[in-house]
C-alpha cells in the first residue's frame, strides 16, 4: 500500500510573538500535525522573498510566515515590511503558476497558542488537500519539448 501524502511545511516564526505562541501551544499541550518545521527568526521582517522562493524550490509543499500582529512588532514596524513583501511574493508565485494557498501569512501573538495550533492544523489540511507541490525543478527534457 502506498503511504498517504504527508506534506512538508516550512514555517518562519518571529521570535517574540509567533515562536512564543508556538511554545505556548506546547505548554498548553495543544495537539497539531507534525508536518511543520520551524525556522526561528528574530522578526518576520527578516524573511525575504528569496527565502520563500528557495523553500518552494527545495520542495516545500507549503510555507507559513508568522509574525506579531501589526502594531505589536518588537521592532516597531518590521512586520509592515513582512506584510508588503509576503503579499507580493504570494501574488508572484500565483502568477508563476503555483497555487497561492500553499503560502500563508499569519499574525500570531505570544498569547495565541490556540491560534497557532489552529493555523497549523488548518494549513496542513489545506496543503494536504492540494497534494504534493508541483516540482519547480527545471529539466532540459522539457525544454527540448520531449
Amino acid at each position, binding site marked *: 500500500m502506498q503511504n498517504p501524502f504527508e506534506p512538508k511545511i516550512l514555517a518562519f516564526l518571529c521570535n517574540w*510573538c509567533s515562536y512564543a505562541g508556538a511554545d505556548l501551544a506546547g505548554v498548553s499541550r495543544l495537539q497539531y500535525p507534525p508536518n511543520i518545521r520551524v525556522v526561528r527568526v528574530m522578526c518576520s521582517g527578516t524573511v525575504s522573498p528569496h527565502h520563500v522562493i528557495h523553500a518552494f524550490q527545495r520542495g516545500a509543499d507549503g510555507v507559513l510566515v508568522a509574525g*506579531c*500582529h501589526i*502594531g*505589536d512588532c518588537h521592532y516597531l514596524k518590521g512586520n509592515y515590511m513582512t506584510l508588503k513583501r509576503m503579499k507580493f511574493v504570494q501574488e508572484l508565485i500565483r502568477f508563476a503558476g503555483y497555487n497561492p494557498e500553499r503560502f500563508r501569512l499569519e499574525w500570531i*501573538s*505570544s*498569547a495565541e497558542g490556540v491560534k497557532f495550533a489552529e493555523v497549523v492544523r488548518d494549513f496542513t489540511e489545506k496543503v494536504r488537500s492540494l497534494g504534493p507541490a508541483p516540482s519547480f525543478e527545471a529539466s532540459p527534457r522539457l525544454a527540448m519539448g520531449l
Partner: protein
Amino acid sequence: MVNATRTASSNPIGSVLVVGGGIAGVQAALDLADTGYFVHLIEKTSAIGGAMSMLDKTFPTDDCAM
C-alpha cells in the same frame, strides 16, 4: 520650594525597595538597576506583571498587552 523636602544624607544606602510588581514597579526597578542601584522588587502574587498582564489589548493602538 522645589526639593524642599529633600534632606539628602551624604552617605546614603545605594539600594531601593520597590513595592509592587506591576508595570510601574517593574519600570522603576529597571531604571534604577540600569543606573547603578541595587533593587529589591517585592510582589505579593507569584508573578510580576500586575493588572496589565490581565488585559487583552491596550488602547489606543490595540497592542497586545502581554
